[in-house]
């Protein structure tokens, strides 16, 4: 019976000219989103590769110079890369990079505001002048037209357009009384309509997204990516079903089509536009981050206080001037590095409370947002899809933690040589630790996504259950 109703619905839809406009536009948007995401992924790939190449080149040049010096080349003190202090502080650097995963094209997520590569040297990460990606703030604020935008914003709109008058249109056109005088209960009609429209819209969304992604990103054809593709399909189906559930519930109320359209648009605006923005505002208001201004000032005041307490002063070795300028410079530099490291440690210790506060507030804020997202299916979907692309806030936190750890490693590696005021050996330069990014394990990511999927499932199940319960009271008759 359901198949029969679906066939009829299909015929009706196929004879509606709007179908031939709406569906192709929707398909084009999906394809455009995939293309945009894929372009973004290769942009990230290039940048990350460039950063890595830059770091490699830096190390290679230094080794080259060291080899020449060992072979007996004439060189000034400042040219020697082996001097631990300058190497640790500004001459040597590593680029800690977060290469995009094969699935990166799914969503741009946070990757346009959170850097995917960070320069690591001695100085605190906070003070590091990063080669920040340059982007027009207006473009950033407008948001990207990526797949996740199409799926989170436009996908429900199409569902609304196709289903807001599932029942009301037939009641208004008068066919419904004849239909319901047939031995078929109303929920079967609704079920058939949802199956057909859902199959069409959700099928198109899942189909074009996945086929498009796989064609333009052949590197996704590996088990570690394919489970993410599967998860994307599940998320899309649940998110789509949620909106069909809303449509069912709204239609079951037996209001006019225009009223249904208004109610559904209002739900969309509330769930997709207002609720996330209000939650964002709440997160920021309940757990305000210490201002970056405060942090910069704390750092600077810390430096100042530490310098005063230790009586730090850059020595001017007038006694050395009689020798040569070169020797004076060398002595002065060595002297500086001996004194400056403990001093910096002290300064950082003075400034650390505000940094700790920043980190803990940031965590609280993120936890708060993580918990509150369960109030809006759109927020859940957004975060889940970003996770799949490895571009969620959590993914970037993890990256930053890895970088912070590596930064510690860098400092530890150089600390002794600097304090001993010596040159590194060639082997020690070769062995300078390098950064490798370890993406969060599939298990961890899947665990987080599982929570989102369950929440989406509950949302969808709840509205569908409510809708179908309401249908029992549905009456085609005007009062």
């Amino acid at each position: 019976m359901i198949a029969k109703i679906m066939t009829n619905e299909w015929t009706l839809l196929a004879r509606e000219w709007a179908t031939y406009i709406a569906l192709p536009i929707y398909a084009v948007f999906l394809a455009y989103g995939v293309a945009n995401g894929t372009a973004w992924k290769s942009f990230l790939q290039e940048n990350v590769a460039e950063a890595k190449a830059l770091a490699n080149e830096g190390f290679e040049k230094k080794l080259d110079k060291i080899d020449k010096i060992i072979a007996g080349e004439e060189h000034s003190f400042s040219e020697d890369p082996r001097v631990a202090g300058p190497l640790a502080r500004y001459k040597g650097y590593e680029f800690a990079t977060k290469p995009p995963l094969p699935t990166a094209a799914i969503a741009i997520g946070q990757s346009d505001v959170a850097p995917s590569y960070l320069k690591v040297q001695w100085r605190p990460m906070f003070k590091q002048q990063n080669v920040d990606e340059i982007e027009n703030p207006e473009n950033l604020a407008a948001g990207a037209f990526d797949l996740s935008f199409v799926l989170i914003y436009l996908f429900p709109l199409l569902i609304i357009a196709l289903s807001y008058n599932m029942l009301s249109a037939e009641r208004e056109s008068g066919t419904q009384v004849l239909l319901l005088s047939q031995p078929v209960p109303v929920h079967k009609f609704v079920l058939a309509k949802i199956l057909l429209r859902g199959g069409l819209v959700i099928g198109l969304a899942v189909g074009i997204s996945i086929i498009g992604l796989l064609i333009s990103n052949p590197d996704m054809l590996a088990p570690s990516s394919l489970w993410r593709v599967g998860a994307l399909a599940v998320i899309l189906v649940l998110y789509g079903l949620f909106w069909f559930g809303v449509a069912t519930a709204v239609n079951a109320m037996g209001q006019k089509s225009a009223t249904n359209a208004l109610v559904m648009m209002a739900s969309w605006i509330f769930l997709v536009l207002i609720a996330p923005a209000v939650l964002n505002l709440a997160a920021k208001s309940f757990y305000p981050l210490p201002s970056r201004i405060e942090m910069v000032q704390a750092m600077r005041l810390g430096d100042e206080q530490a310098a005063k307490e230790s009586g730090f002063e850059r020595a001017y070795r007038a006694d050395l001037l009689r020798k040569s300028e070169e020797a004076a410079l060398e002595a002065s530099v060595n002297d500086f590095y001996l004194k400056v490291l403990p001093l910096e440690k002290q300064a950082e210790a003075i400034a650390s409370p505000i940094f700790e506060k920043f980190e803990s507030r940031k965590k609280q804020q993120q936890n708060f947002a993580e918990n509150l997202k369960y109030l809006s299916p759109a927020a859940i979907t957004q975060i889940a899809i970003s996770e799949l692309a490895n571009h969620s806030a959590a993914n970037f936190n993890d990256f930053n933690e890895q970088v912070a750890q590596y930064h510690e490693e860098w400092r530890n590696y150089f600390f002794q040589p600097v304090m001993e005021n010596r040159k590194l050996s060639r082997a020690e330069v070769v062995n300078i630790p390098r950064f490798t990014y370890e993406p969060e394990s599939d298990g961890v990511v899947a665990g987080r996504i599982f929570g989102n999927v369950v929440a989406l499932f509950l949302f969808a199940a709840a509205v569908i259950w409510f809708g179908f319960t309401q249908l029992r009271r549905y009456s085609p008759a005007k009062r």
Partner: protein
Amino acid sequence: MIWRIAQKELLETIRDGRFVWTGVVVFVLFITAIGVGAQRYSEDRALRQVAEQEDRELWLNQGDKGPHSAGHYGVYAFKPATPLAFFDPGFNDYTGTLQYLEAHRENQASYKPATDATALQRFGDLSGAMVLQLLTPLLIFLLCFGMIAGEREDGTLRQLMSMGVPKMKLVWGKAAGAGLALGVVLIPCIFVSAVLAALFIQGDGDPHTMVDFPAKLAVIVLVYLVFFASLAALALSVSIRARSSAAALTALIGFWIVAGLLIPRMSADVSKLMYDTPSAFELADTIQKGREAGPRAHEPNHPNHIAFKKKVLEEYGVDDVDDLPFSFVGLAFQADEELGFKVFDETFGGIRRTFEKQNRVRQFFGLFSPFVAVKTLSSALSGTDVHYANDFSKAGESYRRNMVTILNEDIKQNATGMTQYSAEWGYRANKSLWEKVPPFDFDPPGIQTILGRNMFSIFVLFLWLTGGFGLLYMSAKRVDSQL
């Protein structure tokens, strides 16, 4: 007659539960956003003022040291906000908040708030401007979509026409009614936000942030009025021409989605396609290459340094730097900086020009979406647009240039005859030199600059207004065509 119709519309609207609830929601959201915005604004302002003072103190009391070391110590510039920013945070989440001004390099303003935000940030900020730019248009559409189409369906329009009500008057009455109903929602909004603003900005006599404040406020109110009026005219025209009220509603919501959501995003893509943003690496590379060609002020043994020395000696016709009437070290520092100025003008200036071109492309899309035009104007007047951020960056940079020039000039004058090492580390200047560098100061652009920069968006908004009312005028003749 018009007044009578308007009154009836207002009465009907107010008795309509849909409108009342939507209005209440808009009111609550607006007040919340303004309240939170105002509170954040005043906190930020307090922090900034303290930081500015502290930073100046640090600069003045950095003790006796070499002027070049002081250049490395540097100064921080904090981006100030004009009071309207709490109404419209504009692009502030995506522009840097402070800029480090030091010797040798032009830094860009860093720490975009968006980097630290949660993923929810991407859904947008709930601000007063967001409520007015995205939600109020929906309220207007809700108000107007059924004004004619609905009466036609109910049959009351036939009645009205049979009684000889002139079509024009009917339409103007409806428009006035829509205006009144909107006023019922927005006037309390404005009133409450004015009170909030007065509470939070109290005591902000800062002449810098208050530049042309009354004029900016007046223009921003005008901008929104024009925006709303255009939308109301459009919505009424659609209501006249649509087959049914449902069709009118669908068309208007479709317009809202396309113009409010799709076009802004697409215009960003198009602008990037037309004017490519250079990559950060390319830029770093250009800067490095440019700087490397300089006199290498810190490296006396570098060939560039030696060549520069030779050139200067020839110019002054002396054999030794000690015979120069000033310190060669100071000159070399300054020459190095001046080369940097040129390099930075090309690179960062180039980026700023690219952004401006991109933004012009985006503004062009205002022809298809008044939402784009109103966002541009509102953020410009609130001091939260990209121009403002660029102005701040440029002010920071010219402050920096002045600072290093003063410092290098001091070396040039006072380190005569000193070796590189002595000039850098032996010579010490004191507070009197630090005082010669004035405190950082930034004047937000005045109303004339803002209007001048945004002529196109003003023009576009004006087009929407005349277009909307032109359409309404023509549609009014067809009020009775579908009876």
